[in-house]
């Protein structure tokens, strides 16, 4: 059996790779997740499906071949995970952020990410307090089936797991292939079956709108005929998720998570908020959740710093979207709530508060559950993803129906 446990600071590199690629995708921009909630732009679903498909194949294939991994399947306490997912989805609809994209947005120099960070820390602190109560204990113990995945308990039945992983990857790739990225666009399946397909005026308008939204607030000129121009006007706005660039980015992210699991642990982003709370406010030793987090978090604080730094480097050298903390309000939010900075700050703060509270309650977020968890085919992560999507769509519908 091949087994490795890397030094903690190596996590910095993992974060830099994932943060940089995700920034290039545009996921650090809260408008992207708000548009996902409005079911207008499904980039996140398509990209994450490619990463999960490629990652699960590699993970279970290598595991079957005798490579040891640091598994990180989250326990499936049905009620707590569902309630956490519902709160998490609501928080995304309001703020447009998930825990990891707050770090990326800070690296991109987005002003509202500062308020989101503060709200997130308060949300994490709230869960540390709730965990100490009998209600908190009930949430994490009632109907708790432990660390299970589609083939049984974690790190068992790997041969069956590999078989299911092939099927799981096929489902993920099918979703990415058949789901049109844009509301008025066509899927990859359609465009590959219609070789002479040309962008419709509606789809072209979506491309232009997305490029403008991604660049809005950039504090640096883009320049002419260079790589950033290609990235912003052609690669990241493309609906071809199976195109070379989009596909490669998805696969690299999936394989990076597998590499991280080989080296040290799964890729997560939200535990660091609880860890910071434990270090500055609710100390380990007295608060049970802080004690748990302080001794098990691993290299996540380093990988989170890497995520921020990777997004920063990408926004300077690759996409030229660095905002220098300019006043930028996501277009959907602006249309619905106006230009007020105070309203946006309150939305980012309160949304991130809910989102982190939900993430800690469910023991994971978009990274620990949706990316790393679904890549490991964890039952809890699938449950979390389904509930998050339902509440994200539902709450977005309520909030943004006036502008849709």
């Amino acid at each position, binding site marked *: 059996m091949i087994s490795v*446990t890397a030094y*903690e600071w190596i996590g910095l590199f993992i974060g830099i790779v994932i943060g940089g690629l995700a920034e290039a995708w545009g996921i650090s921009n809260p408008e992207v997740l708000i548009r996902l909630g409005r079911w207008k732009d499904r980039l996140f679903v398509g990209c994450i499906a490619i990463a999960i498909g490629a990652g699960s194949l590699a993970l279970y294939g290598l595991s079957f071949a005798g490579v040891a991994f640091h598994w990180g399947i989250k326990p499936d306490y049905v009620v707590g995970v569902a309630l956490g997912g519902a709160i998490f989805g609501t928080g995304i609809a309001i703020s447009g952020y998930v825990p990891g994209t707050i770090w990326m947005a800070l690296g991109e120099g987005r002003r509202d990410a500062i308020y989101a960070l503060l709200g997130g820390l308060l949300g994490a602190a709230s869960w540390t307090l709730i965990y100490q109560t009998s209600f908190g204990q009930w949430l994490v113990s009632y109907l708790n089936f432990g660390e299970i995945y589609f083939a049984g308990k974690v790190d068992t039945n790997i041969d069956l797991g590999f078989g299911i992983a092939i099927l799981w990857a096929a489902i993920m790739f099918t979703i990415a292939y058949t789901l049109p990225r844009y509301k008025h666009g066509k899927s990859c399946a359609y465009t590959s079956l219609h070789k002479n397909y040309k962008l419709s005026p509606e789809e072209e308008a979506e*491309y232009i709108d997305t490029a403008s939204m991604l660049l809005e607030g950039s504090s640096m000129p*883009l320049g002419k005929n260079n790589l950033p121009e290609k990235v912003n006007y052609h690669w990241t706005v493309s609906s071809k998720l199976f195109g070379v660039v989009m596909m490669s980015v998805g696969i690299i992210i999936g394989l990076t998570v597998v590499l991280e699991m080989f080296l040290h642990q799964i890729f997560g982003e939200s535990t660091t908020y609880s860890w910071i709370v434990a270090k500055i406010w609710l100390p380990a030793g007295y608060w049970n959740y802080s004690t748990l987090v302080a001794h098990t978090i691993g290299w996540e604080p380093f990988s989170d710093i890497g995520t921020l*730094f990777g997004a*920063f480097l990408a926004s300077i050298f690759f996409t030229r979207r660095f905002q*220098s903390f300019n006043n930028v309000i996501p*277009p959907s939010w602006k249309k619905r709530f106006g230009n007020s900075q105070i309203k946006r700050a309150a939305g980012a703060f309160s949304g991130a508060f809910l989102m982190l509270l939900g993430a800690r309650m469910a023991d994971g977020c978009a990274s620990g559950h949706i990316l790393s968890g679904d890549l490991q085919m964890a039952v809890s992560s699938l449950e979390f993803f389904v509930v998050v999507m339902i509440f994200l769509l539902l709450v977005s519908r309520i909030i943004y129906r006036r502008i849709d």
Partner: protein
Amino acid sequence: MDKIEQVEKLRETNEPQVKSEKGIKAFIISMTFVTILTAALTSGTYNGYDPNAYSVAITGFFVIVTVVMTAVWYRSKYSNYSYEDKKS
């Protein structure tokens, strides 16, 4: 010329000229090495699951300094430029 190209041209004519950014880019690359070196030296060969808070704090501090210094530099270099879509 398709619509996307028209939008690109419109942006090119409205945005300020790109100036030399060699200085700030050299600073960022140097700080990248400083950050990685700081994390490596302060965290060392530890590979457990209870990270050293001081190591994380100093590494994070260097990253924050880099981001803030860069923001100040770009704001002064391009006179508080902020891209806005002229159509919207």
